[in-house]
């Protein structure tokens, strides 16, 4: 799906103060790309995600999916649209009252699928994320990486054409982060899907994204193809994010991941 944002503005008002979290943000990305939105905490990236994923409505500006305006949809239309939107979260947000399989079944139940189709789709999705043997497992028995895999299976079960990832790897260790990013890239390669990742880690952008938008104080301060932005960052904040990676200790794992991200075959021995 092609995502386009036009002059989005969003202000949150409380009794004490009002904060403009998103200021005149316009973004336009090619169809079926993996997009990273990076910023420090409080930069407005989560608000931007909530607007782009139609969880909130902008005060001003428009959101377009495949050229169709989708902000301010009526309630019924919006709930139907949501089936085309997948979402995963930092804290997974899985239902502990359901097994892994029934978590994946949840959006399908909402969409009114019949039981046999749900069963088949659940098995297909769990196999896709490599958890075919955990269908009956309670969520509490899964590791963090496995939980995020179930969340991915759940998000993609109703065949959405856009996937929003809200700090989806921030609660995971580096090894598991790589596995999850690889899984997302693998899935992306196999279907018609736009992926939008909100993150504060430049490594995530480097390892998984094709395009990046850098957000600071509510503004998008830099945007473009990841390779261009990494080669010649224009903004101070962007350079700061990049130097954070360079200062990071280079471990064998991160070196391998980097090479793989650049398209090299790496023999792990």
């Amino acid at each position, binding site marked *: 799906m092609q995502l386009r944002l036009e002059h989005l503005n969003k202000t949150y008002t409380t009794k004490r103060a009002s904060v403009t979290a998103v200021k005149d943000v316009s973004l336009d990305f090619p169809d079926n790309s993996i997009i990273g939105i990076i910023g420090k905490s409080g930069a407005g990236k989560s608000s931007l995600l909530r607007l782009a*994923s139609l*969880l909130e409505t902008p005060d001003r500006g428009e959101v377009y999916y495949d050229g169709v305006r989708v902000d301010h949809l009526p309630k019924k239309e*919006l*709930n*139907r*649209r*949501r*089936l085309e*939107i997948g*979402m995963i*979260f930092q*804290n997974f*947000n*899985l*239902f*502990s*009252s*359901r*097994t892994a*399989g*029934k978590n994946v*079944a*949840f*959006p399908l*139940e*909402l*969409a009114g699928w019949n039981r046999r189709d749900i*069963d*088949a789709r659940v*098995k297909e999705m769990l196999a896709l994320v490599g958890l075919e043997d955990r*269908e*009956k497992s*309670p*969520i*509490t028995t899964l590791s963090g990486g496995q939980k995020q895999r179930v969340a991915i299976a*759940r998000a993609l079960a*109703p065949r959405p054409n856009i996937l929003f990832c809200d700090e989806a790897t921030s609660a995971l260790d580096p090894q598991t982060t790589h596995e999850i990013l690889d899984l997302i890239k693998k899935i992306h390669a196999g279907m018609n899907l736009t992926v939008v990742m909100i993150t504060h880690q430049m490594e995530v952008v480097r390892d998984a994204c094709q395009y990046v938008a850098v957000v600071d104080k509510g503004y998008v301060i830099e945007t473009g193809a990841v390779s261009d932005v990494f080669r010649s960052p224009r903004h101070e904040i962007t350079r700061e994010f990049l130097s954070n990676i360079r200062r990071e200790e280079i471990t064998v794992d991160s070196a391998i991941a980097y090479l793989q991200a650049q398209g090299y075959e790496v023999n792990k021995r």
Partner: protein
Amino acid sequence: MSPITELVLQSTWETVVMVFFSTLFAILLGFPLGIFLFVTSPRGIAPKIIPYQLISRIVNVLRSFPFVILMIVLFPLSRVVLGTAIGTEATIIPLSIAAAPFIARLTETALNEVDKGVIQAAVAMGASKRQVVRKVLIPEALPSIISGVTLTIITLIGYSAMAGAIGGGGLGDLAIRYGYQRFRTDVMIESVVIIIAMVEVIQFLGNKAATLVVKYPIGSFGRQKSPK
């Protein structure tokens, strides 16, 4: 069977009947109220300030009433509904009304404790408010709702003993009439021991039920169909 043993068995049965039916009615009344309070609260998923304040106040008033007073206040209601204010059946009405607000608050608290992120995920997947309540909130809150109901049953066992004192029958009544007024210490001890045993059994079963729903979430059972 000695007359005393028979009396003890009879009273035990009366207590069981009182506690069972008052728990049932308290849940039927209190559970929907608890959901209403959660949904309409100012921070709920469909805030409605005035109805919320109204129900919330009524719940608070009923909860602050000392039970003995509540029972006397409700005598006329028992008379209207059942034609009498005395006896095991008549006691079920004040017991239910005393316990319903308790269940309502416990349910509201249990629903409030459900992780907000989980609700957000359900909304993001296109769940309506009704679906959020039915398919997410209630199942997610079930373990703590079960603990709350367990607590309520135990409180009701205590209340039912009090209710016995003003004509409800049951073990409390027995303990007072025989154990206290006729100096039958053995009857007193028997009654108290049976009440303690009841509390222990309910607590055990309640804990067990709460653990089981955590251990076997929705989807644990049913046949594992092989993909064709």
